[in-house]
């Protein structure tokens, strides 16, 4: 009889496993029983890691994880050659697989990732798709001109281009006063935040669509861009026909520089995937798609952030500020985005090379 000691309460699974090793009739089972306690410890650590209870893990356990993982992997390799116990083999396979995901998949915290993302990764991703941005910009300008030309030739085009929610009072033949009324400064901010929230969800939905459609080799993204810009071109013609072009552009530019830039980026990101899949270079199509997809996804996170800004700008300064203030805000935002995306994060890129 042993006197009860403190060690009785510490969890050392070897103690109860020890007598079994002798009882095992098969060599492969002896092998298993000798290592079982380590596997169980690894499993315990993994379960806690998977539940996200990283803080509750002791330093010892964290340090032991790689060693335990390697032990389990070598146990698996040995067991494959010496044991026919399929329960043990499949247990080890699933254990090593789970451990592998935790050991070789170190996760950044969301905050750490966000800091890197805003501190250069976003800018770099955007710089890398410059060609697609140029193409998308060209397409958008072409779409605007098309819209303008179509409506100036035949005013019936206005009704088929512009969605009915915009064509309330802003229709061809409307007087200067009516059009000016639609650009007027609101006198209170009531209802504006609801407007902003709706704008944001709507625009974000559209830009996600523009991105996702890029998968089909980019053509639907381009069509979406052309259509949206043709609407703009048509309205631009309408306002300029009453000599209100400057007021309209100022009214639009408050949020428009941010919003149109975001839509431009979304379309370019979608097209980037399509282009890389059509012309993968010396990579396989699947690898090219994966690489460009991850790059484009970073751009898309940036797009959603930009659209939050755009919605806030659209709801408050656009409705509450006068023409000059509107234009100044718009130009300032444009300069801000261009500087952030194209001047920022360059040094790091060169340092990496």
């Amino acid at each position: 009889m042993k006197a009860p000691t403190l060690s009785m309460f510490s969890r050392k699974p070897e103690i109860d496993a020890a007598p079994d090793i002798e009882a095992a009739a098969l060599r492969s089972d002896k092998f298993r029983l000798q290592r079982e306690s380590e596997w169980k410890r690894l499993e315990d650590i993994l379960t806690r890691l998977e539940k996200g209870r990283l803080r509750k893990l002791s330093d010892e356990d964290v340090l032991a994880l790689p060693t335990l993982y390697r032990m389990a992997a070598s146990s698996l390799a040995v067991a494959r050659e010496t044991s026919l116990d399929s329960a043990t083999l499949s247990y080890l396979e699933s254990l090593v697989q789970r451990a592998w995901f935790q050991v070789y998949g170190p996760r950044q915290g969301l905050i750490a990732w966000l800091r890197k993302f805003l501190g250069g990764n976003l800018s770099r991703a955007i710089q890398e798709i410059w060609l697609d941005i140029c193409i998308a910009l060209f397409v958008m300008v072409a779409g605007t001109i098309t819209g303008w030309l179509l409506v100036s030739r035949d005013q019936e085009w206005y009704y088929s281009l512009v969605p009915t929610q915009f064509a309330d009072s802003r229709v061809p033949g409307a007087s200067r006063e009516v059009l000016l009324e639609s650009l007027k400064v609101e006198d209170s901010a009531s209802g504006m935040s609801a407007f902003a929230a709706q704008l944001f969800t709507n625009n974000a939905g559209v830009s996600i669509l523009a991105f996702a459609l890029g998968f089909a080799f980019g053509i639907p993204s381009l069509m979406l861009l052309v259509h949206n810009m043709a609407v703009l071109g048509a309205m631009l013609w309408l306002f300029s026909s009453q000599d209100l072009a400057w007021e309209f552009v100022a009214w639009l530019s408050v949020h428009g520089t941010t919003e149109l830039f975001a839509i431009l980026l979304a379309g370019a990101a979608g097209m980037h995937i399509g282009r890389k899949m059509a012309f993968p270079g010396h990579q396989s199509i699947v690898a090219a798609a994966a690489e460009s997809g991850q790059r484009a996804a970073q751009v898309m996170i940036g797009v959603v952030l930009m659209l939050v800004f755009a919605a806030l700008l659209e709801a408050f300064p656009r409705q509450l500020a006068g023409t000059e203030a509107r234009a100044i805000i718009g130009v300032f935002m444009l300069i801000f985005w261009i500087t952030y995306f194209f001047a920022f994060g360059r040094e790091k890129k060169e340092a990496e090379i």
Partner: protein
Amino acid sequence: MSSAYLPSQIRERKARKQRLMVTPEGVSLPLTIASRGSRAGALMLDFTILSVTTITLTLILIWIAAGTFVEQEVNGLPGSGEFLFVVWSLMWFFAWNGYFMLFEMGPRGATPGKRLTGIRVASRDGGRLTPEAIVARNLLRDIELFLPLVLLLLAPSGESGAAGWAGLLWSLVFMLFPFFNKDSMRAGDLIAGTWVLDAPKQKLAATLSTEGAVAHGSSAITGAEYRFGDEELSVYGEYELQTLERVLRDGRPEALQAVAETICYKIGWNAGAGDERAFLEAFYGQLRARLETGMRFGNRKADKFS
């Protein structure tokens, strides 16, 4: 121990879903591509969870809004109502777009639905699953699922005419994408460089050779000792051994009886009834010892046909 398929056919079918990944330690790990059925199940579970949550939140917000309408203003929404509307529309957007991303970025790489069906998202190149990849694979969900579903409802009504049908056909390409590649990737997986794998979580079963007739070679009920000769053990291979292991672990009496009869017939024994478990345990122990010894010398016997 007989089934409609040959053991080699069963192995082949399993291998079709398996991909080998070699860890840096040089151990090859078999990864199993998740079945399309379990992925569809996971999606339905996630959608149920999402719908129930968002609709409940909507009802709660409506209830709160109804409470604030006491101080109704003359024109437009009252300030509190407007605030609730903002909360509601942002909640809706972030719930439906963020749910999948948030959960897949977690340490298990799976949404609750995927967790319940035992699958997870993993990076196809064996690297780590980056946030960018998760964002990419989830942004495509719109055109893969929502757009086809909308068109599926719209096109047959004939309102949108031929364009509706064309749109439906086009979007079905995305919806049916997983059925036309061997890794059952959806378009989002292709873009993000990910795939969905089975994530089995197994308990370690007890050792068979520490108890019963496997350890002692004799029955606890009758005391009879079963010893098998070389020719008797040489009729079966690894596949049959592992089938026998499964039968022993399940321990269903009818199965034990049927298997014992088959083995007796095959090796020409007449063991009698009532002591099947001990007979099978003894046979299992000795067959495994024999096959494992062969393994150590480099002779493997895959199944009874080899």
